[in-house]
């Protein structure tokens, strides 16, 4: 791997190597630009993926160098419901390794639907909601969805349905198995007149681009993939970036500031290295791809005389319109075994309720996914019916009776963007590096709770339709953090109400680009990754085109 000195004025520093950062690194470096990627996590098992453990206990207790997710005791964060509360210690966590969250995610790769780009026009204003139209259309993004699906490697099958985004090109790899939970979805859907779709998943069902197909090991979400079937940035984009000989990936690099000069241009970034020693890396431009929470926090920490509210924040919008991602779970016990621990987490979706319906009396929709996934320890500790005994002969009997018979429906539901929901800097709590902790303030819109309740009821209907016994569901609650966080640096045409323009350039800073889930104006149905990836390919295209037209200094 090529190495640059900190004083080398590289073309781009990219902060983060996940869903967006990995794509930015690959696109920019293979097009001839000199790139340094700063990743706060380690390498994981990069290049020796067969060493990823499938041992559940070890995976739950990683050594510091084997961690794949951030550690809330180091990357501290706090949570409060609203401005009146004092925030208390939070459990928010995100992918923290080369490849970011894509190294361990479930891999759902749904596109946003065309009307999800202009919901405000489509629906009209909603009291208390910050719903807004995107500055781009589905048609503008569509080619980049295809590019992402083909370059990353997505398994799926194109369907013609009003509930699924139209595609000009099918998926490159056939779908993963539907699993027993998917078969139950089909049975329930046949009875209730609903539509089941094989979910598009970033796990290749067959060999593709030199990687082998999924072996259905079942130690999936939360684990690194030992056969490289999960199409993470770490096995798709980063190797190509490094092979270009234009890209250095610097791990254990915790960025604390994006630095600017008197003219307001970015000059580079300051980060802590592995030994917590400060390093300044010079750069002609910076791409911020640290995830919605961390990108916003970094901008807010990068205050200066010229940018007293934080960098790129003349609008005051940085950190706001946070969407954490609401889900609803419902489960029941089936007569026959599902063995859903085998294979990927989710194989099938019911999509009829993706659109909102005014007749329901609230705005919101969602995507229902079939699962029954339980790894053995997790099953023993938390997987049983809540009324089953917790210990003793009754517990053991329940363990045996319920094993592999659980059918769970997890719905991914709309969360509207609210101005009051946000991340900012905790005034009291510091992280392990002495920097202000991420503070999350969030309470979902009343419609979002109605959406969740709607999906709770729908899930029960489906469970009943397939003969599930001892059904349990809810009560519903909204999210307090996690890897689906979106919306804190929304894109828009108006610098007064948005942070970046339609090409991801910060309105206030000409050589700063923000490319990650923070740009999402609305959250879709809480399946963000594919849209983040498509946006990254599109952003890279425009940066490359502009940089070639002039010099980088005039970007």
């Amino acid at each position, binding site marked *: 791997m090529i190495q640059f000195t900190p004083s080398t004025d590289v073309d781009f520093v990219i902060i983060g190597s996940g869903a967006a950062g990995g794509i930015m690194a690959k696109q920019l470096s293979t097009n001839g630009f000199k790139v340094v990627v700063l990743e706060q996590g380690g390498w994981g098992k990069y290049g020796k993926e067969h060493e990823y453990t499938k041992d559940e206990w070890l995976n739950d207790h990683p050594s510091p160098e084997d961690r794949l997710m951030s550690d809330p005791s180091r990357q501290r964060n706090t949570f409060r419901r609203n401005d009146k509360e004092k925030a208390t210690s939070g459990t928010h966590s995100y992918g923290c390794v080369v490849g970011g969250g894509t190294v361990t995610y479930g891999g759902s790769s749904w596109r946003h639907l065309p009307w999800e780009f202009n919901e405000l026009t489509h629906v009209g204003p909603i009291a208390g909601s910050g719903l807004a139209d995107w500055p781009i259309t589905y048609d503008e993004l569509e080619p980049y969805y295809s590019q992402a699906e083909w370059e990353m490697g997505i398994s799926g099958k194109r369907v013609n349905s009003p509930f699924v985004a139209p595609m000009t090109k099918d998926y490159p790899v056939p779908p993963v198995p*539907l699993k027993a939970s998917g078969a139950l979805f089909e049975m329930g859907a046949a009875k209730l007149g609903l539509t089941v779709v094989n979910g598009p998943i970033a796990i290749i069902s067959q060999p593709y681009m030199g990687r082998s197909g999924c072996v*259905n090991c079942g130690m999936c979400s939360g684990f690194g993939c030992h056969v490289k079937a999960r199409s993470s940035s770490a096995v798709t984009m980063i190797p190509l970036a490094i092979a270009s000989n234009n890209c250095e990936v610097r791990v254990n690099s915790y960025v604390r500031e994006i630095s600017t000069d008197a003219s307001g241009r970015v000059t580079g970034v300051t980060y802590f290295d592995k030994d917590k020693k400060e390093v300044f890396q010079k750069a002609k431009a910076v791409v911020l791809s640290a995830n919605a929470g961390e990108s916003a926090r970094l901008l807010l920490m990068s205050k200066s005389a010229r940018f007293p509210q934080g960098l790129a924040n003349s609008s005051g919008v940085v950190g706001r319109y946070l969407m954490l991602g609401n889900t609803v779970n419902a489960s029941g016990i089936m007569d026959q075994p599902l063995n859903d621990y085998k294979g990927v987490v989710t194989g099938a979706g019911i999509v009829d309720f993706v659109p909102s319906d005014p007749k329901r009396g609230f705005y919101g929709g969602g995507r229902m996914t079939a699962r029954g996934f339980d790894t053995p320890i997790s099953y023993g500790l938390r997987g049983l019916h809540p009324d089953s005994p917790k210990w003793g002969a009754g517990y053991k009997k329940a363990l045996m009776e319920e094993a592999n018979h659980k059918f769970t429906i997890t719905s991914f539901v709309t969360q509207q963007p609210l101005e009051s929901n946000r991340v900012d800097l905790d005034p009291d709590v510091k992280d392990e590096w002495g920097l202000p902790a991420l503070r999350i303030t969030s309470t979902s819109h009343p419609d979002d709770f109605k959406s969740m309740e709607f999906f709770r009821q729908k899930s029960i209907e489906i469970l009943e339709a397939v003969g599930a016994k001892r059904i349990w569901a809810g009560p519903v609650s909204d999210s307090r953090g996690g890897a689906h966080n979106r919306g804190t640096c929304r894109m828009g045409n108006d610098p007064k109400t948005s942070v970046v323009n339609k090409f991801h350039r910060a309105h206030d800073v000409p050589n700063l680009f923000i490319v990650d889930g923070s740009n999402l104006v609305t959250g879709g149905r809480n399946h963000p990754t594919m849209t983040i990836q498509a946006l990254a390919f599109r952003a890279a295209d425009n940066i490359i085109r502009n940089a070639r037209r002039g010099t980088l200094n005039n970007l």
Partner: protein
Amino acid sequence: MRPQQRSRRQFLIQSVAGLGGAWVAANYAGIMEAQAFVQQAASSGQPIKLAFLTEAQAAEVDAMAAQIIPSDATPGAREAHVINFIDRALVTFEKNQQQAYVKGLQDLDAQTKALFPAAPRFSALTSEQQIQVLTAMEKTPFFNLVRTHSVTGFFASPIHGGNYNKVGWKLVNYDDSLNHKPPFGYYDAQPLPRR
């Protein structure tokens, strides 16, 4: 190094593939002992050397675990050697829980004496009496900790000392081959269309 040790070391290295070198170095003794126990137990059935708990403490924890996952027609915590998992965990991943065990076992003794003043210790009670004591303690953090560790030891990979002969996995029909072909269960094996 004798050949037998070498092969054991080799086995260990292979089986903990996925751990960083520094971590293995720091926790090597604990894992090594867990491994040694697994091999020794398999070959001899002799009592094992405890790493943290005293013999007397181990007998109490073992009795608790055996009530949490009892042995009946099928194996329980005892056959899974859960006590070995817990003892090893207390010098490796769960080091920070050592005091919780020391203190918790004192509470267990106090609870035992409160209900059965003549009893010498919890493990000497009848099964019904043990259940009474644990029922009185089931909301305490210590009971929850022992429950968590017992269940974890029952279902964690046998490399960690419990789940001996995969009895935990067998009890719930978990196939650990990590390589499965569809159909996986009953419902996806049914012919189409599925109604």
